[in-house]
Each structure stands twice: as C-alpha cells, then as structure tokens.
C-alpha cells in the first residue's frame, strides 16, 4: 500500500516535470514562430541534433558537466534553506584563481599541480559563495541580492585580470589583445576520452560527486543538520542546530562546486580563461537542480537533458538562424512552470477541486473527503 503510494507520487512528479517542460517548449515554439521560423523544423534540429553521431552525443555531456557541478551546489544550498544565485560569479572566481596558480608553476608535475589547481578553484568559489552566506547569517543580507551583486563583481574582476595583469603575453606580442590568459600548462589538461571530440573525464568526476553529495546530505550528521535547517529553521534551532553556521557552510559548498565547474571547464574544454566562460551555466544550474527535484542523483539526468537542449539550441541556430538565446528563455519558463506546478504536489486536493464541475461547498467537500477515505 505504502510502496504503491510512493510510486504513484514519484510518477506524478515526473509527469508534472514533463508537463512543465512541454508547456515551456510550446511557448518556445510560439516564440520561434514569432521570430520567423518554422517551429517544427527548428525543434527537429534542436532535438535530433544532439543524437547525430559521435560529436552530438559527447558534446551534450561536455555541456552537462558544468551544469551538473553547479546544480549539485544549488541542490545543497536549496536543501539548506538558502538560495544560491551566484553560480556565475563563483565559476569565474574558481577558474581565474585556479588558472593563476597553474600559470605560476608551469613546470610542476601534474600529480601535484592538477589537484592543487582544482583545490584552489574550489576554495576560491567557496570563499565567494561563503561570503554571501556569512552576510546572510551575520548581517541579514538577502542572499539572492548579494549573490547577484557578487556575480557582477566577479565578472568585472575577471575581465580586469584577463585584459590586464593576466593577459596572454602572445596577445600583446601580436597586438591582437583578445582578453584571455595564456594556455595552462599542458600536463594538467583533462584528457579527452573520445578522439575528435571535446569529451573529457570531468563528466565522470561530476557524476561521482553527485553520489558523494547524496551520501553527504542523507547519510552524515552534518548533512542531516543542513537539511533540517532548510526544512524548518525554527524547529532546527529548537533542536540545538546552529542554523546560521550550516547555511554559511551550504553556501560555501555551493560556491565550491561552482568554482570547480569553472576550473573543469577551463582544463577540459578551453585550456585557458577567456571572456564569457560561465556562459549562463550559473543560472542553468538552478534549472537543473529544480528539474532534478533538488536531489543530487536526480540532477544527473536533468543535467544531461539540459546539456542536450543547450547543444541543440546551438545546432538550431546554425540550421534555421534562430538565436541560441531562446534556450535561456525556455529555461526561464521551465523554472516558472516547475515551481508553479509544485502546488499540485503540496496540495493534491486542488486536482480534485479542478475536476469537479461546481465550486466546492461544504457538502461537496465532505463527499470528496469520504471518497478519499474509501481509497
């Protein structure tokens, strides 16, 4: 009895997610039509593109990697009752800090330099995220606003560094002046696993970390306390949990994951820090977390799905000249519809009310209740 209830519940949740995505794609089709293209043709290249051959399949996973890493951080923070909108800035801070270390010690062997670079990027992101958590805990600053501001600060700071002190010496030598750092030492590049593609082992690192986050949040005391702080801060406080401390920790972890995402993107894909590195992943990571039902394991398929959508949008841009910006609009709609449809999970009785012909009067409500009891 109980088990089938849970099955029905999770099935209805999947149905709601699918409904939210479909609705968003439907509105997206209208936008494509407004933009002057045939939605069917556009969607065909968007959905079939990622399945076309070796490149499409692997590139989807390349895009899914930062999405999953940022998403894991968002899951951790949302579960702890604090909203991390700062993925963009934390990614950039992680990437630039890690790159600075790697460029400072170009001769070091990979065994030392690679872990060091990754750790520095995690720490830089954690400081950037943890600062917002500290502002919230100590000074009551709304974390959404502070992380948004920290995004802009980090982007400008990174631009300053890659235009000035950290610019590739060759860009100056040839006078081109593209804002980007030099290539990072070759020995720490993340190896590409399929020839002729950009698929690197960062994806497997991200998937492994998803399981680590799951174990951490559901099987350790600290994780339990973080979730308790998120579910009911007052109850958690009454139980002696230092809610503020765990929220700072949650933001630091969220920032750490985003910082790692930035570094993995550098080591696996670009090999250097360049402008537009974060590419909206900080926001898309929120979509992945929500679509994964705020569960680290659920975030894996969600990241792959939105990785495919992101790649598909690029391919659509080439096929029918619809700007890839549309994928951000569709993701925004997905967020709106997912959080909107959540009401059916929290208050399932609304379904019943909607499918009844008349407004519920007291009698109707009693009938519905007794019908519910018979089930």
């Amino acid at each position, binding site marked *: 009895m109980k088990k089938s209830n849970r099955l029905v519940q999770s099935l209805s949740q999947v149905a709601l997610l699918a409904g939210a995505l479909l609705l968003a794609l439907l509105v997206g089709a209208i936008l494509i039509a407004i933009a002057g293209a045939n939605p069917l043709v556009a969607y065909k290249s968007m959905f079939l593109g990622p399945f076309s051959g070796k490149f499409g399949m692997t590139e989807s996973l390349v895009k899914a990697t930062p999405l999953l890493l940022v998403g894991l951080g968002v899951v951790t923070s949302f579960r702890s009752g604090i*909203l991390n909108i700062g993925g963009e800035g934390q990614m950039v801070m992680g990437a630039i800090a890690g790159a600075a270390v790697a460029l400072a010690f170009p001769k070091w062997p990979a065994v030392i330099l690679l872990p060091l670079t990754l750790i520095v990027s995690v720490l830089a992101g954690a400081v950037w995220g943890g600062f917002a958590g500290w502002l919230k805990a100590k000074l009551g600053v709304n974390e959404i606003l502070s992380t948004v*501001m920290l995004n*802009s600060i980090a982007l400008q700071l990174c631009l300053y560094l890659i235009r000035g002190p950290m610019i590739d010496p060759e860009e100056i030598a040839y006078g081109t002046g593209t804002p980007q750092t030099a290539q990072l030492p070759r020995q720490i590049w993340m190896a590409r696993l399929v020839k002729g593609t950009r698929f690197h082992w960062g994806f497997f690192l991200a998937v492994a970390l998803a399981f680590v986050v799951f174990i951490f949040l559901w099987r350790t005391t600290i994780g339990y306390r973080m979730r308790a702080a998120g579910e009911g801060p007052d109850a958690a406080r009454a139980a002696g949990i230092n809610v503020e401390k765990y929220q700072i920790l949650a933001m630091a972890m969220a920032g750490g994951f985003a910082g790692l995402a930035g570094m993995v993107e550098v080591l696996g894909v670009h090999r250097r820090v360049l402008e537009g590195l974060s590419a909206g992943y900080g926001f898309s990571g929120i979509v992945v977390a929500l679509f994964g039902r705020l569960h680290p394991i659920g975030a894996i398929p969600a990241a792959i799905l939105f990785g495919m959508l992101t790649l598909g949008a690029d391919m659509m841009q080439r096929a029918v000249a619809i700007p890839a910006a549309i994928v951000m609009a569709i993701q925004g709609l997905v967020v709106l519809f997912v*959080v909107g449809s959540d009401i059916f999970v929290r208050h399932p009785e609304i379904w019943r009310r909607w499918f009844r012909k008349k407004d519920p009067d007291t009698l109707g409500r009693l009938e519905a209740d007794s019908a519910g009891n018979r089930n």
Partner: protein
Amino acid sequence: MQGIVISDVIIGILATGVRLLAPFLFASLGEMFCQRSGVFNLGVEGIMMMGAFVGFFVTLRLGNPYLGVVMAILAGIVLGLLMALISVTMQAPQGISGIGLHMFCWGLSGLLFRVYVGFITSIDGFKPLPIPGLADIPVLGPILFQHNWMVYLSILFVPISWFVLFKTNWGLKVRAVGVAPQAADTLGVNVNAVRYQCLMLGGALAGLAGAFLTVGQANMYADNITAGRGFIAVALVYFGRWNPVGILLGSLLFSMMNSLQLWIQVLGINFPYEFAVILPYVVTIAALAVAVKNVWAPTALGKPFRRESI
C-alpha cells in the same frame, strides 16, 4: 580657468546623477508596492530588459518614442501578470520564480533583438525639456531643470506613491495585505487581487524604467543594457525601508555613483574601467549590510497567501 572647469565638472556630475535617478526610482517604487503587498518580485531586472527592448524597438520602427513608452509599460504589465500567476495563484517560492522570470526575459529580449534588429543602431529618443524660468537659474538650473519629461515624472512619483500608499484606501489595503493577510481577508479584502494589482503596477513601472534606459537616456539598445539596475532597485527597497522617501535617498546615492563612474570614464581619469563599474555593486552589498538588520519589514513578505478553510 581651472576653477571654472572643475565647477563645470561638478555640475555635470550632479546633473547626470539627477538624470540617472529615473530608472532607479521607477523600478524601486514599483517594487515597493509589490513588497508592501507581500510579494518579492525579483523579476524586475528582466522586466526592465524587456521594457528597454520594446521601447527601443517601437521607437525604431514607428518613430514615436511616446508609443514606445506605452508599449513598454504594457509589456511590463503582461510580465507582472505572469509573475502574479506563478507566485500568487500558484503560490511558488518567490525568489526562484523571480529568477525564472528574469531568465525568460533575458533570453527573450536577446532573441528578439537578434532576430529583428541585429546590430547597434540609434533612435531619436526624448529631448530635454528645460522648464521655462527655472532652467536659467545658475548651477541649480542645469542640475535640476534641464531634463526630459520622464525624469520629472519619476521625481513626481515619489510624493504620489507616498500619498497613494499612506493616504488612500487602496494603499491601506496594500499595507494590510502585506502585514496581516489573514486579518485583511477576514475583513473582506481580496488578498490575491490586491497582490495582482501591485505586481501589475510594479511590472508597469519596471517596463517604464527599462524604456527610460533606451528612449530617455542611451537612445540605443545593447545586450544587458540594464546592467543589474533592476536587482539594485530591489535592494533599494530594503535600503529605503519600504518608504518612498527612503527610496528617493537610496536612488540618489546610486544615481550619483553611476554618474561619477560615467564621468571617470569620460574624463579619462587613470582608473581601471572595471573597478568603476564594480563600485555600485559593492556599495549595494555594503548598503544592504548596514541597512537591513533588525529593521521592520512587511511581515507577510515572501509568503504566499492561502485560505485555511479550503
């Protein structure tokens, strides 16, 4: 000689600061009504982006900036309705739905700009409208009385919204709904209707704020023209303690800083451009840190309303 130049620069900074007040004031005053009614609308930045694009596009195609402003306001109202549908009717957590709205508008304005315009081009926006007599006063004239009509309107909105919020029946309803929705409901106030009205008003003003950026200030459109002003506007509501006068003071602080940053670039002072851009964001965080702790806020802010009896 030197003295004259410096005083000109100071007048220039102050005048630009007053001109840049408009987007902050429009957006913050609109957001103030939303938050007073208990809804935290983070979508302001996105609505401003759409307002900026629509105002620009209508002016570009039809040559009438007034029509551009009207269409931007309409777009803002529609987006405010969308936010209301998700956050009020569907009772979604408002921080996340606001970010969703922001992402939607961000993608949509980028899409429409690329498809229908595609390149940077300038439009004929509003010309300054010097107020006869007052505009000729030395020092004060150029600072206060030589702007376009939207700037005057935005400053006029401060006393108007103070009056509406504190002296009218509707304003009382807004405040009641934001502090004690259950009690207001018991007294026959339609809580969700009031919140819908506030979100539509907030959307309209955010659209207007966006339109000012393209039609009243830059006379062109570029990606990310709002540059976080919508988020700063939300922060200003906290900083101004949900009060039009406080919001005016906060907006002044930020518009003056924006102006200073622009003048630093114009004068070619040797100061990294990026740090000048960072300044307003740093001050926003500092202002929030100083202003927010232990201050009264609408008690129902961020809490969707749901009748117990259903």
